[in-house]
């Protein structure tokens, strides 16, 4: 896997979608390789490949048998700095990206709402912009914009090569040196994004759409990530998310779904891996015939209870055990561990952070969980997103 320390949040203002657009264009060939040739070679060698873009990173991967490692490195090194783009290939690929946006966002009321919720959650930081970009900005991106972005960020000193598998480390190292060692160093700008101002009022976004038959509700708060100055809260928040919404016996599911029978599902999650301020989220989908206000009031009561009385030692221990076990299950695949390291290394963590994750989770105490919860769950720093049918008549 080749990970670049650049994502959508590093795009220039007014040019949303460049990072993802460029990811598509990386398959369009170089001076040495025709468009699509890389993919042909991977296919012919029995491999699988794809790429992904997030707010903080862009990654390219191939899964191949180990004797093809050198070949993959040669191809990946070739397109790291040798991409050749022209107006025609950009115009065609732009349509593909627009169709991707329609598929992912514009044909789904929930996805449209999520986009609006992010735009409201962040008022200044570029996490407010969708990774795929706003449609009107994708339509306006120019060849020069894309090449400029590529030249600015794509270089070996801004990349992380991750090789996962049954390989010999020194052989991999030598191969990497052969193929990437000859590429020139580039001066890479610091990733300094505008930061969030203090938020003084809760925000709420309501999307009504005639196609909605199952309404939904979510609330998110700005929360520190593993890369934040107050990152000690991050490990505690991970445990807190598990206590509140990490499964069938979590607080929210037990209360809203099982005991009070108000929702069909409810939960919480927290994105700990982010270069900048992240979010903590609680959500539910109401049962049919139950009004949104009744369920959200019940949820607020649960939040109030946990802020006032705190968590119990028992539920914190159960949550920690499940998180620790999930780390064992994460090793049961070839991509899983590579993914974990890739995300960590591109969001401000290092190898030591990954290797000590289990210890740090183990060390979390109920007091730390309660402190983190109190620090984050403040109504004035929240954004609520509500999805409703147009006429507010519930699904039958």
């Amino acid at each position, binding site marked *: 896997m080749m990970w670049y320390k650049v994502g959508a949040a590093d795009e220039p203002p007014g040019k949303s979608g460049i990072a993802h657009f460029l990811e598509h264009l990386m398959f369009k060939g170089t001076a040495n390789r025709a468009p699509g040739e890389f993919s042909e070679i991977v296919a012919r060698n029995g491999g699988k490949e794809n790429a992904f873009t997030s707010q903080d990173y862009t990654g390219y991967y191939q899964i191949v048998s180990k004797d093809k490692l050198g070949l993959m490195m040669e191809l990946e090194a070739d397109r790291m700095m040798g991409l050749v783009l022209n107006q025609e290939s950009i115009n065609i690929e732009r349509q593909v990206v627009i169709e991707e946006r329609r598929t992912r966002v514009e044909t789904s009321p929930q996805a449209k709402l999520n986009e609006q919720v992010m735009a409201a959650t962040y008022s200044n930081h570029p996490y407010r912009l969708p990774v795929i970009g706003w449609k009107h900005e994708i339509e306006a991106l120019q060849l020069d914009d894309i090449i400029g972005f590529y030249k600015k960020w794509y270089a070996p000193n801004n990349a992380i090569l991750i090789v996962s598998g049954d390989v010999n*480390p020194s052989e991999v190292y030598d191969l990497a040196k052969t193929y990437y060692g000859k590429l020139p160093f580039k001066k890479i700008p610091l990733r300094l994004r505008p930061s969030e101002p203090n938020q003084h009022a809760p925000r709420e976004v309501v999307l009504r759409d005639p196609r909605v038959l199952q309404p939904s509700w979510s609330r998110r708060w700005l929360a520190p990530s593993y890369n934040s100055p107050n990152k000690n809260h991050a490990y505690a928040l991970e445990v807190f998310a598990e206590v509140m919404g990490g499964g069938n016996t979590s607080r929210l599911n037990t209360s809203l779904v099982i005991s009070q029978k108000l929702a069909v599902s409810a939960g919480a999650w927290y994105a700990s891996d982010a270069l900048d301020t992240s979010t903590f989220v609680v959500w539910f989908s109401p049962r049919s015939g139950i009004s949104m206000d009744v369920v959200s009031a019940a949820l607020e009561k649960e939040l109030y209870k946990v802020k006032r009385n705190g968590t119990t030692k028992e539920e914190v221990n159960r949550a920690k055990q499940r998180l620790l076990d999930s780390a064992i299950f994460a090793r049961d695949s070839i991509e899983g561990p590579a993914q974990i390291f890739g995300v960590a290394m591109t969001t401000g963590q290092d190898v030591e952070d990954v290797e000590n994750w289990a210890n740090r989770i183990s060390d979390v105490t109920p007091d730390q969980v309660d402190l983190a919860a109190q620090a984050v769950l403040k109504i004035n720093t929240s954004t609520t997103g509500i999805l409703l049918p147009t006429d507010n008549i519930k699904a039958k």
Partner: protein
Amino acid sequence: MSLVFKGFKDILLVLIVTFPFLGSGDVHSMEIQRVVSSGGIEAWLVEDHSLPIVSIRFSFPGGSVNDPTDKSGLANMSTKLLGEGAGEFNSQKFHRRLEDLSVSLNFEAYKDIILGSMKTLTRNRDEAFDLLKLALLKPRFDDDSIQLIRAQIRSRIARNKNNPNNIAQRTYWSMMFPEHPYRFESSGTFKSIEKISKYDLKSFVRSNLVKTGLIIGVAGDITADELALSLDKTFGGLPRYFEKNEIENISPRTLGKVVVVKNNLPQSSIVFGQNGLARNHPDYYAAYLLNHILGGGGFTSRLYKEIREKRGLVYSVYSYLLPLDYSSLWLGAAATDNKSVKDTIKIIKSEWSRMQDYQITQEQLQSARDNIKGSFSLRFNNTASIAGMLLEIQRKGLGINYIQNRENIYDMITINDINRVAKKWLDPKSLTFVIVGNPSNIISSEVISGK
């Protein structure tokens, strides 16, 4: 897991993650053991002790295809309730046991089978099998649980009801199988799930979770002897056999229609297809190769190249063979701008014809063959997917040496076979399209108005 972390000339960070792999990451070197317990329960096992994890996948024959016509969704609802309390544990206690032991246990009704899966850490293996046994033999069907699962299924149906892909699939299946139970979605409808009673659920479990036709695949940290004991303990108490409905084999009604489901969306979702091949048909492997070249092979297929790469009309377009127990389809899907629907359909049809007209080169065949052979291993790099593969190989009757034979089967297919199969099976005139959206300039055989 050992990790090597190096940088050179302060330029590139190199991270190398090495750890023991199942079968060293190559399925061809995996040893499949046929384990038969003293009680006569059979399972296929790939033993691997590199991680303290065991995965099991098992299936019972007869899924939602067996649902009574007025109670579609019965198989789905019954299986969802298996994990909602059993024996002395009510739903919450049962879930709490599972979560405290980090055991994942799932049941799902497909058209032709009921699929069960469980994954556990070695340290909780015995308790995990005990919980699985309870779920299979003593599900409780408490009123609260039935009410909750019914509400969750209703919610799922509501979510899917106006989803364009889902509308397209639903419409397509009901057109292909107007009189056959394949036309129903496994989830059932708002109406049908209200008719399902506790009695229905209980008798479904009694008559469908039986030893006859039970197929099991296991991978991970367990020996053959240990597994044999667990098999008897877990599955030994199931009843042997129960009479099933006779389901007829049926050919899909691929009449070459273009049907539009009007929907005010910025993009049209397209589902298309024709008659397919049964999994045990002698032409199946050649057809699989053919489809790989046509629309199955990711970034290198003809549909992808013509429609996405050259013209930018879609984000995704693909085709696949779908052999079922009582019928077979050759399906595909795409999504495009409303004004490009006409062009997209035209190209799909012309690619279909082009495949038929003896235009596959030796090189394309070789490349497709190499990809199909080489990528097989890559699909099976975790215990759950290996257990699933062992289940599929048994279910399809491919034989315990299938993994070794598979390469040979593909090697033997010649360009003449491919061309013969293309001529015989591909039928552009019968290709039937369902379009959900607001496509322009489409001459359709039928317009269904959506909302």
